[in-house]
């Protein structure tokens, strides 16, 4: 039987994968994907808890997050294209121009 804890463990695993991606990857496109994974991890947690308590608020919240994530990807990809046209690279190590 698959219970709440299984969903939460899956969510935590996905979140950690996303976090590691953010911390380790150098390509901004990959960072964007990692962010999506983290957002979807929280979505899973929301939906699972919502189902568990029989409260629809969590599922509503998940839809919001999906919508926002979609627009975020659209804006983010647009920015990345401009960035790539300007610098010819998406590697974070090449893009450091504000060293303190």
């Amino acid at each position, binding site marked *: 039987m698959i219970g709440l804890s299984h969903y939460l463990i899956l969510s935590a695993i996905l979140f950690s994968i996303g976090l590691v991606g*953010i*911390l380790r990857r*150098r390509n901004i496109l990959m960072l964007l994907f990692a962010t999506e994974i983290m957002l979807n991890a929280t979505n899973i947690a929301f939906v699972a808890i919502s189902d568990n308590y029989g409260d629809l608020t969590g599922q509503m919240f998940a839809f919001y997050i999906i919508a926002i994530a979609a627009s975020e990807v659209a804006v983010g990809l647009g920015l990345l294209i401009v960035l790539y046209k300007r610098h010819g690279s998406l590697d974070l190590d090449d*893009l*450091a121009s504000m*060293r303190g």
Partner: protein
Amino acid sequence: MESLVYVALFAPFVGSLFASLFGMSERQIFVGVVASLLLFISFLASALLAANLYITGDVIHITMMDWISAGDFNVAFGFVVDQISVTMMTVVTLVSTIVHIYAIGYMDHDKSFNRFFSYLSAFVFSMMILVMSDNFLGLFIGWEGVGVCSWLLVGFWYHKPDQDRKDNPSISPSWAANEAFIMNRIADLGMLVGIFILYWNTGSLQYDEVFAKLPELSESVLVGAAIALFIGAMGKSAQFPLHTWLTDAMEGPTPVSALIHAATMVTAGVFLVVRSNPLYSMEEVAGVSMFIASLGTFVAFYAASMALVERDLKRIIAYSTLSQLGYMFAAAGLGAYWIALFHLAAHAFFKALLFLGGGNVMHAMHDELDLFKMGDLRKKMRGTWLYMGFASIALVGLPPLAGFWSKDAIIETAFNEHTYILWIMLVITAGMTAFYSFRQVFLSFHGEDRHTALGFHPHEMYKFVLAAMFPLAVLALITGWFMSSYKEFIYKIGESVQYEMSDHTHHLAIYLALMVIFIVLSSITFAYFKYARTGEKAWKRDEEKEQGFFYKLLINQYYVPKFYEEFITKPYAMISEVFWTKIDLKIVDATVDNIAKFFYATGDKTRSMQTGNLSNYLNWMAVGAMILLGVAAISAMIGLGGIDG
């Protein structure tokens, strides 16, 4: 009538604001003319109010607006025009108008001409608030206002450098201005305490309400309030031991000395005592009143003695002001408030005239004030000579001039009260006054010509300036003739200001007056033979005598300024030095500095985090999030925090 009150009060203020518009620009004659005209309007309004009060006897009491209203504490901007304030208003505006016109001529070479007029008019405005206010707080505002204006005006030539005390006893204008200001602050604290005591015990600051409740108060409260208020009066009116600032204030331009340090501001202390006459005439505070009279008499004598040997023309006049203020306090302390007020008015006229004459001499002699360098000026400055001689006759109290009537009444009062010691001292002081006044006149205008050899080429003052001084001369002559009608006028206030001589004194009055006149005349004759003769018998400086004990004591002002310097100024400076280097620098500043240094160092160390690499920033962010998560987890475990805690 109400609008006249506002005109009298605000015309000088408008003049000040107008002059301040041109404060930074070149000398413009019209600035002085406009300021003088506005003051003249103020004088006309005051005179009309005085005439109205004299005819109808209606005291005008107006409330302009609420000022402070906090809880039970209510003070309004209220003004009262009664017999006491209208006397002051008329005197102040009249003398200020003349001094303003005089200053147009006197300050004509000064590049800060416009600034001078804005200060001078601001002073008159403050003085009007002081005398017209119907409550103690308004009086205090005016009191501080005149203090600030006095500071600005004494230090008007702030660019002059400090000199050694031996060369110039007042050191420098800015030093003198600070001395006057600081000494007045000390006294003002006393006055503020007095106002607090009265408010605490009567619940009001309005004169009439406070005075109505006085009989209910306990003796200690009354005595405390009387003493504290008198300390304020001592500072403003330069009574011993807070007197040294007045002679040093002579560093200011002469019109300032004439207006502020002779005719108006320094009489504010006398005004305060007269205004508070219901308090000072109470049985319970008789001791304080006696102290006021004794101190006044002492100061009259003390100041006159220092004037005997002084060489500086303006300082002599300042000492005589101090001495006459002593007379006023003697009268007020003995209960003869109206005589004090009358002497105040008469003194304002002849003393302003004397000062303005002194200003003419100073102008002619290119700011040289040493009497020993003058002599025989009367041939070149006939008008000034006549004015100064006339004012001196009024000052020493020869009939029929103003000084005779008012000063004689004070001496008579001392006799009438059976305070014979005060009486004798006041009579001796009258003789000394005659001597030093005429010593000054004879040394400057008579005797051998000493100034030509020193390269001075004095010239008479402008005609319009001499013409502007004429009303003062007329007033110095006629004021005394109206003494009985003034008495009738001021008696309407109530019993507390009424003062009558006993029949016994009345019979003897003529002999007392004759005796004083005799002493005065013989002093003048003595001064004449000593200083005014020419040729072989001319006065010669006696260097040997100047080394004598009494001469040195007097010329050094009884070493009081020296004492203040050695025992107050210097120890204070030393303590301040210790506080500065040990406490301020080592503790206060060090604490603040170290906090700043800590943050600076933290920033400097953590600056390397700013690599400009987004990936690094994200790592740091994750670390921060972890720490926050850890803190949240720990506090949840040990039961801290959380919304339902």
